[in-house]
């Protein structure tokens, strides 16, 4: 099945696997959030529907490695939710990782553009 941008889901999943933790860190750099809200934000950002089974292990790993901190808070009239926010080392990591990703993606872009525009 293809997504709106024509990328089939398998490939999108492969691409996303390497960068999902960085995207999550970047979203949390804006404001603290909980799992379901993050999946909505990723969807809105055009990255497709990330399932809970994919997202929560990433959050757990980020929590374990000290890049995010979590606490439970009652929702307004709804169920309690586990909120995540960046720690200082998470803020440092998101700057470093996004710099590295942009450099890497830029090289891929350069290569593809060269390939497509060369005679």
């Amino acid at each position, binding site marked *: 099945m293809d997504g709106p941008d024509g990328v089939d889901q398998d490939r999108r999943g492969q691409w996303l696997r390497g960068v999902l933790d960085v995207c999550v860190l970047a979203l949390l750099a804006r404001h603290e959030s909980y799992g379901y809200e993050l999946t909505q934000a990723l969807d809105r950002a055009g990255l497709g529907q990330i399932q809970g089974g994919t997202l929560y292990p990433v959050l757990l790993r980020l929590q*374990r490695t000290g890049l995010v901190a979590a606490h439970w808070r009652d929702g307004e009239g709804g169920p309690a939710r586990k909120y995540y926010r960046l720690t200082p080392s998470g803020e440092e990591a998101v700057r470093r990782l996004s710099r590295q990703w942009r450099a890497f993606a830029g090289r891929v872009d350069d290569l593809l553009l060269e390939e497509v525009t060369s005679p």
Partner: protein
Amino acid sequence: MTDERWLHALGQELARHRLTPDLTHHVVAEAAAHLRDSGQPALRAFGTPQGYAAAVVESLASQHRPPRRPPGRVRLRASQITKRYGRRTVLGPTDLTVRAGEVAAIVGANGCGKSTFLRICAGLLSPDSGEVVVDGVLGYCPQNGGTYDFLLPEEHFVLVGAGRGLDRARSRRLGRSGAATLQWEPARDTQARHLSGGTRQKLNLVMAALGDPDVLLLDEPYQGFDRGAYLDFWQHVWRWRDEGRAIVVVTHLLNQLDQVDQVLDLTPGTREAAA
């Protein structure tokens, strides 16, 4: 499966992986909140309880494992080992060097000489040519056999312990605690011939590891294990490695291979130890 049953199954599965009750509760509560918020059925959002629990445990395990120490001295060196039975070559010239704190996996099709090579490394079988040097105490776990039908598990512990310079009480104690880590409590009056295949393999594994040998040679030791015990087995392998033992595992299950230090593929034509 209803979401409630799915969440219950997830809790049980996490407990089997021996997550703390606290952490288990948090993971289940978070999944429940997600299901309420998203309105999705659990199977669609998270997959099977078993699969999701495994993903959760893996995301935690990478942190649990202490940083790897650099490998130590060479504990096992097998050089240019060959073996023939009559005219049939079962093993072409094969090398393997394993250092303290390393895990080597031996893989390959059935009949390519994996068990033969391991038995030669264990000193149970003579090679036609080549040489094996072992530095330290060696523990060997065969694929099957290796237990004595009419002996009790405790008598096995005492027997192996005696060979490693341990007294009877200590051997029994170490054997029982080793069994407990595999979720097996040996009955005091059950002879080995009455144990199930999987339990006999646990006995073999406990014997191999008794007294913390320096070199562990394990020939598909998890046959007949249920899934929980199989996962436990690999946790033991990582712990032994972190304690500085040299470990060789014959395996046909490839999903652990990205975590071992070297893979020796004995399939003819691919004979090379890749780091």
